């Protein structure tokens, strides 16, 4: 009658030496596994694009206008060489998508990496040093956050193109895009890390390191940094999806990757011109891939956030 299994929940019992942050045993929900698998598959396919893509979408010379606007292979007029059809230049859409995902993920990941690095460093400095350093960094961050991401990114890439003619080429566009996205995103990392740093700085182990006479740089890098990183990992995951979307938006607006080296956003922009002429596939497939990728990353990121939350009670 009083089955003990009713209360099966991994809550830490009273222990003589409480071990906080013990690895919690838990079951990973199916949706998260699904999300992770989707992200992994897309990521792998994008990374291995040169080897698995049936055509080379970057080689303009190989396009044949006779193949232009070919519907997907499963449709009546489809051609078995082009699984998902071709675009207006006769480029294989499936290959273009693989290469496009590669560009999107690289730029999104690059932006996250830059933003996280800058944000963590500035957040550490602001939180540990305080005073005018803190005030300066955080007010600059406030100003930046008061502008919408896209507006700021448009501004940055617009200015970059104006002063630097090569900014629109396949070689330089990714760098500009990464910068344009990261300039907005770092603030979030800086704020989070600053708050966590202030909490850690008041703890005795940091005070002990200060009494020992260790230099500030060393205290920040060696003692505080490892203890403030877990929220950064979570934000980075969630922001990866946002960065991929921002890149797609910029490319869609025509200030991102050039049509000769398309990202998913560029492909959607190209396809957008043809949607109403019945050539729906050019926009739809890249858009679907983008949605699935962003959704997968978001699901994994949300779960990571819950998993790292120390207040999380197991259900």
């Amino acid at each position, binding site marked *: 009658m009083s089955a003990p299994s009713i209360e099966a929940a991994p809550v830490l019992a009273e222990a*003589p030496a409480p071990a906080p942050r013990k690895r919690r045993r838990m079951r990973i929900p199916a949706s998260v596994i699904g999300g992770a698998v989707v992200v992994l598959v897309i990521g792998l396919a994008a990374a291995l694009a040169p080897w698995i893509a049936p055509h080379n979408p970057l080689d303009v010379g190989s396009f044949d206008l006779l193949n232009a606007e070919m519907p997907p292979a499963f449709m009546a007029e489809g051609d078995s060489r082009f699984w998902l059809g071709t675009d207006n230049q006769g480029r294989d859409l499936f290959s273009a998508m693989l290469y496009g995902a590669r560009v999107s993920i690289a730029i999104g990941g690059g932006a996250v990496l830059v933003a996280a690095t800058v944000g963590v460093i500035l957040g550490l400095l602001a939180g540990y040093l305080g005073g005018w350093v803190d005030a300066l960094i955080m007010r600059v961050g406030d100003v930046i956050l008061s502008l919408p991401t896209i507006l700021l990114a448009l501004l940055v890439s617009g200015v970059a193109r104006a002063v630097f003619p090569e900014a629109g080429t396949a070689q330089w566009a990714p760098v500009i895009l990464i910068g344009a996205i990261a300039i907005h995103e770092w603030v979030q990392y800086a704020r989070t890390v600053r708050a966590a740093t202030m909490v850690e700085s008041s703890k005795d*182990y940091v005070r002990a390191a200060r009494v020992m006479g260790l230099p500030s740089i060393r205290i920040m890098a060696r003692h505080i940094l490892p203890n403030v990183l877990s929220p950064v990992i979570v934000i980075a995951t969630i922001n990866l999806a946002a960065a991929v979307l921002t890149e797609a938006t910029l490319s869609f607006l025509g200030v991102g990757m050039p049509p000769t080296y398309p990202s998913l956003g560029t492909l959607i922009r190209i396809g957008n011109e043809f949607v109403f002429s019945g050539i729906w596939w050019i926009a739809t497939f890249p858009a679907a891939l983008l949605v699935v990728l962003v959704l997968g990353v978001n699901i994994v990121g949300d779960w990571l956030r819950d998993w790292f939350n120390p207040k999380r009670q197991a259900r």
Partner: protein
Amino acid sequence: MSSRPRPTAGVPALDIRNLTVEYGQPGEPPMAAVLDASLTIMPGEIHALVGESGAGKTTVGNALMGLLQAPGRITAGGITIGGKAVDTRTGRTEGITPGLDVGAIFQDPMTSLNPLFTIESQLCETMRHHLKLSRAAAQARALELMRAVGIPEPERRLKCYPHQLSGGQRQRVVIAAALSCDPQLIVADEPTTALDVSVQAQILKLIRALADERGVGVLLVTHNMGVVAQVADTVTIMLKGRVVESGPVAQVLGAPRHPYARSLIGAVPRIDVRMNRLQAPSEATPAADAAREIVRKQMTADTAAAGGALEVENLVVEYGGRSWLPGRSAKAFRAVDGVSFTVQPGEIFGLVGESGCGKTTVANAIAGLATPKDGAIRLSGREIGARGKHGRALQMVFQDPYSALNPRLRVSTALSEPIAFYKLAATRAEAAEDAAVLLEAVGLDRSAGERFPHAFSGGQRQRIAIARALGPRPRFMVCDEPTSSLDVSVQAQILNLLKDLRDLTGLSMLFISHDLAVVRQMCDRIAVMQAGKIVELADAETLFRAPQHAYTRELLSLAPSLDSIARAPAPAHGA
């Protein structure tokens, strides 16, 4: 004013029979937090439940209040509150209404009141819910309760929010809330641990008076033997979930029979007599002795940091009042107001006072963690640098051993870091070896270095923190309440260790504590601080035998101690 009939005389307020509480997942062997424990509290009786961390005393309190957490469940035994049997068949206490049958007083009055509601609404809420009183009746009763717990100007205080009251007043409000539905039993879990001695004395007096006047039974969960001696009638000592001894306070504390009870009571520092060492098991092992000899040689051979005398001259530290924004200046709070003292080489200098008196700020200023506004601090004749650093000559041991160690660094890494930084060892391997020797010298195994801090108990962590402080071979050590978060028996060991290290290396120490008995056992000279100033400075014996200042006398008279109970005479080596 009681709306419910009191139980007839002779019916216990609480009767626990063979209670067992187990924690554990299904499929794993359960861990018994409480095993076969029995105790009885008569109306008007204060029954103390004592034991060290992990003894299960808080679990008993939680079981009574229906606060047992999920994997914990009552697996055997019965509970009767005021003659009313409690159903424990489902693993928890069915039928107990917290607030109505059992009143609760928690440790921290800062967090046990909701900051968003007035005192009145918090007091009235439970009464209106449980006793179905009208608003007016509840308010009248709230006022009555506020008077009963001795809060001045109760009408005005009822309209206040918790942050507008002092810690002592808040704890009085919590007691009023516990009494509001006229329970027959109050569970007080460490009710005075977060309070200063003077406030503690008042709260204990209040609890005693309420038990006497209202005939309510009190289960007082505490680790402080002085508190037990002062207010309790009966006491139960627990060890690892079992009751090892139970009986009237005078009998149990005066002449304990169980060996654990004897060692527990023996480990309590005495305020009346100074002893060379506290009673704790000897830790001398060949490995520890050898390690200590190495540490002694290293520290005495180190001439670079000779001396160790500390001079503090007219120290002033202020908080606030400084703002980099123009037009925004707050009034500065003077935490330390012209403090001067000197510490001789090899001396342990005590600094005592209540919370907020500025003693920790003095320590922070000396350690370079707070910037003095005025005054001079000289260590071995050298003024501290512009950035407030002494280099390696001064190290610090902190209060909370759980936050004093970086959770992400292995113990050996944490210990060898300062050694390598100051180039006291030629190579990384030598620094790691020095770290291992230090671990042995503080009574740990050298293999402890392989592990992360969370693998250790509070006392072990404090040993690691001490070893870390010794690493840079300092001449001066600041100890800020190094044992106040530890159990008594562990406290005794740590205090003995600090004393041994002083004797071994000739290190000087500034020892900060609010516990007068601990200070008496540890220190050669003592300064008493009040409101940022030193009010009395004397050598330990003089201060305790003939206190000059009124504040010192008050502190000494309020400190709860075991002296009211006749204790076994001090061992022969007592000074």
